[in-house]
Each structure stands twice: as C-alpha cells, then as structure tokens.
C-alpha cells in the first residue's frame, strides 16, 4: 500500500456517486479529471438544496428566499476567496469558466491597454484558451504576440526570458500544463515580468484543483480557474484579479447587475466584482462551487498534493516497468515537478485507437491534442492519450490503466 498516498483514493471514492457505476460490466476507471472531475455527493446535494429551498434571483429581492439565495452566492464567493488566499472577496469575479475569465482580461484589460508597439508574452505549452484570445486581440489591436518555447524535460526554456519580456505589457502563463503536467515557476516568472513592467496572468485551471493556491504568494495579477475540474459543477469559473486592476478596467459584458445607474446618455458601472457579472449569474453553480471548495478544504489541499505526487510516481514507475521505451510519458520525469497528468505515446498506436480499447475495458482517458496544438507540434505528435489523476484515484486505477494498455498493445500488435 506504499503507493496509494494514504487515505485519499479508495477512501474518498465513496463520496462520488458516479464512481459507483459500471461500464460494460466492469467498475468505471475514471482517469480524465484534467478534462473534468467527478462531483462529490455534497456538491450535488448543495445544488439540489438550493433549488429545493431558496431558489430565487439574487440581489434586489426584498423577500426571504431572495435574500437567502444572495447570501448563499456571496458565501460561496467568500469561500472561493479564502481558498486561493485572495485579499478580498471583491476580487473574485464569477465567469462561465477559465476560458471566459481569460477572454474577459483580453477584451477588457487588453482592449484598454494594448496597441501597436506593445507585446504580450505567452508560452508554447498554453491551452488554446490562453492563446486564441490573444490572437484575436493582436489582430484587432496590432500588438505583438511572443512565445516562450518549451525546452528539455517539458520545462519552459527561460534562456531568453529577459529579451522576450523587454517592452511586454503582459505575461500569460499556465501554472500547470494540461498536457505535460509541468508546474511552471510562477513566482520567478512573475518577478521577472514585474521587473520588466509587465502584468502576469496565470491560467490556473489545472493548478487550483490540485495544489494549495495562494494568489499573493504566486505574485500573479490575474488568475483564472474553473469549477468543474475541482469537484464543482460545469458552467462556473473564476477570475481573480487585484482590486485596483479590476477597478480600472472597463466592463466586459453589459446588462443588468453590472450597473449603478443607466440613463439615456450613458451608464455608471457597478462596483467590483459586480461590474463584471452582467445578467443573472449561475446561482446554483456558484453554490456548488462553494461546496466543492469546502469539500477540498475538508480533504486538505496539502494532502491532495501529497496523494497525487505519490500516485504519479507510482504511475510513472509502473508504466516504465511494464512497457519501457515502448511507452513515452511526455513532460517532466520527476513527480515533484509535475502534476498527475500522464500524456502518453504508446508504440505507434494512434491515441484514438488506444483510447477506444481502453474504453472497452472501462478505462476513461482522453485522446487528442488537448487544446494545445502548438505544444503538439513541438512534441512532434498529432495527439496523445492522456490519463489524469485526482483525489479519488489510487494504485488500482493505475494498474487497470497499465493492464488495458497491454490489451491495446496485443490488439494492434
């Protein structure tokens, strides 16, 4: 039992109703949490309870349940702020997902602050969500998009960082690669960016669910994450940003809720964070996210991280022992430098074919480019097969993956 990381894993599995189901007569082996995690019963219950007992539109309602709905939503905001050590809950803007959070920054902050002669620096290992918004804005505003390349062992090549940051106004970087699992040195990057006069936007979609997060210690200016990868529901994400940045930024979407006053000749935007939350928010999803945060706090994020490091080490060792050079796991070789994301290339079996055989054995993995085509080109592969680990996985899941890979090898052998 040395590799199972203690009480997490099999001990938490019972909290997740879906993990009790079978696929084709076998217990489900869920190894796709980097795409979306499963949800614990407490999150599902909180959302149901919201609908069954206090469902009403938030803010401005003078009646009891509207006040309770507002209270539940703002309590979730406070829980999220505490979870990432934000100085104030006013700095937590609810979005649809991290994609919308980054688009909000690109549109609002970028629209007001970027123009010809400026530069935005991003990395070759970004998810499309932290690439395409900058492509769109670069085409519109005429600024330059610069790239930090990926170097050896799945790490960013920071050799020419100072040159890339010279004249840059923003550095956009993922805290943890959704393909390689690489944990990037955010504090070091943030210090270098700030020295060069640039702000730092962190895509923390793969980080916040898996490691203790302190936005202040990371040195970020903007940080986005998404609820459904951290035991919460889909349709809810978060943009954290320093209050003075949010104050200075123009609104993103216009509509109800985001105004103080509207006249025929204009409008006065609301205070933060409401300035960026136009329209009726996804209240049940916000309540669910708040409960997800409480669930993860109950497990303890230090323990979550320990569990995943230990399980990742077990997985890397097991796959290496069983398949040696026939199976490549892309990204850092040292478990302490990475998250539990195992992007594999196995012999010359196409990831779609590999994942099909794995699915036949109830093993859920993701095959494809993982919304990181520049990185795929760097790796020289069209796609990879990605298994990803979370709080409910243990060594038995890794063993099932290894067995299923063997079956695929025989099938296509």
């Amino acid at each position, binding site marked *: 039992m040395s590799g199972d990381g203690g009480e997490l894993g099999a001990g938490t599995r019972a909290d997740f109703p879906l993990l009790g189901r079978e696929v084709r007569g076998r217990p489900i082996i869920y190894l796709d949490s980097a795409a979306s995690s499963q949800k614990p019963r407490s999150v599902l219950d909180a959302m149901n309870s919201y609908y069954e007992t206090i469902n009403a539109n938030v803010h401005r309602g003078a009646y009891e349940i509207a006040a309770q709905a507002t209270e539940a939503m703002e309590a979730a905001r406070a829980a999220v702020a505490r979870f990432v050590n934000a100085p104030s809950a006013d700095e937590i803007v609810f979005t649809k997902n991290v994609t919308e959070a980054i688009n909000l920054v690109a549109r609002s902050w970028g629209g007001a602050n970027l123009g010809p002669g400026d530069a935005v620096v991003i990395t070759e290992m970004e998810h499309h969500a932290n690439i395409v918004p900058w492509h769109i804005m670069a085409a519109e505003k005429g600024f330059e998009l610069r790239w930090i390349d990926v170097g050896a062992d799945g790490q960013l090549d920071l050799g020419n960082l100072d040159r890339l940051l010279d004249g840059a106004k923003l550095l956009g970087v993922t805290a943890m690669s959704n393909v390689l699992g690489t944990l990037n040195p955010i504090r070091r990057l943030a210090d270098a960016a700030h020295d060069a006069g640039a702000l730092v936007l962190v895509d923390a979609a793969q980080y916040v669910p898996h490691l203790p997060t302190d936005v202040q210690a990371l040195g970020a200016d903007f940080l986005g994450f998404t609820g459904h990868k951290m035991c919460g529901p889909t349709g809810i994400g978060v943009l954290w940003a320093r209050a003075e940045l949010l104050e200075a930024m123009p609104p993103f979407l216009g509509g109800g809720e985001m105004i103080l006053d509207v006249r025929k000749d204009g409008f006065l935007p609301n205070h933060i964070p409401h300035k960026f939350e136009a329209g009726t928010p996804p209240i049940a999803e916000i309540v669910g996210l708040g409960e997800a945060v409480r669930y993860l706090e109950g497990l303890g994020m230090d323990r979550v991280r320990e569990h995943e490091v230990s399980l990742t080490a077990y997985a890397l060792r097991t796959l290496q022992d069983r398949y040696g050079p026939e199976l490549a796991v892309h990204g850092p070789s040292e478990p302490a430098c990475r998250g539990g994301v195992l992007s594999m290339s196995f012999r010359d079996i196409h990831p779609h*074919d590999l994942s099909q055989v794995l699915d036949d054995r109830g093993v859920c993995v993701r095959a494809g480019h993982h919304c990181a085509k520049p990185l795929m080109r760097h790796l020289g592969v069209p796609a990879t097969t990605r298994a990803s680990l979370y709080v409910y996985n243990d060594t038995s899941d890794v063993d099932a993956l290894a067995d299923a890979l063997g079956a695929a090898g025989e099938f296509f052998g």
Partner: protein
Amino acid sequence: MAGLEDLYREIILDHYRNPRNRGELEVPPAVQAVGFNPLCGDEVVIYVEVRDGVITDVSTGGQGCSISQSSASMMSTAVKGRTVAEVRRLVWAFKRMMSIHGSGIGGTGDELDDEPDSGNDAGDVKLGDLEALQGVVKFPVRIKCATLSWNTLVQALDETFA
C-alpha cells in the same frame, strides 16, 4: 453494447497496416485538398487527377487513426478509374451508411446532402468492402474519422471543377 470487433474489422486493420495509394501526385495536373478533424488533430491529404470526367489517379497522405487511414485507403481503391458522377453517387451512398439518422443516436454525424441527381438509382450503388466500415456508426465519436477522407475527396473534386 458494441464491441471492439464491430469497429476494428480485419479488412480495416489490413488497410491501416498496408495503406493503398499512399503518396503524392503532381499538382497540377492533380488537385490537392486537405481535411482536418479538429477533434483529434487528424489530417488527411487527398490528391485526385481527373481526365475526361474519369478519376484516373488518386493518392492519400496525412496522419490519423486506424479508422481514418483505412477509410482513406479503401476510398482510394474504390474511386480510382471511375467516373466523377459514379464517385459522387458512391460518396453519397457511403455517407448515408455512415449517417446515424434513424439509428436513434442523434447528434454528431455528418449532414447528408440531397441525393445527387444521377439519372440512375443511386440506391443501387454497391459499397463492397466499404461495408466493413459500417460498424463505426455504433461508435458515434469515430464517424468523423471514417468520413474525413470522403469529405476531403469531395473538396478536391469541387476544386477540380471550380
């Protein structure tokens, strides 16, 4: 529940391991078209050369899974030497076979255009070995793998006559 043997028929694996008509043709006289499957990053390149309304040569390139590569290979052998009109009917019949309309799955299949005005009964088109790909319909996410080379062929033909 569909099993792997429904998907990976022996003839499919044979075309995957030994693809026919693989390579490039000189452009022109050939026309080249590239198709992408944004889902998985697969990319297929189709070259066709048409003379007097007949597909005199066809070649395939690119990279992809066993389904997309075998479908491209089988497509190339099925269309070589046939008239463009015959091939358009064949494409229609193939896509009808790969359509999930009526199978109760719904959703992710390709849109099926109206039957081409052939003057013949297009329903009589013989699919032959191509019927081996029918099992793919039971795996809806893989349908686009099977139809990728066919849609790319249509692009190449449309460009030929543009």
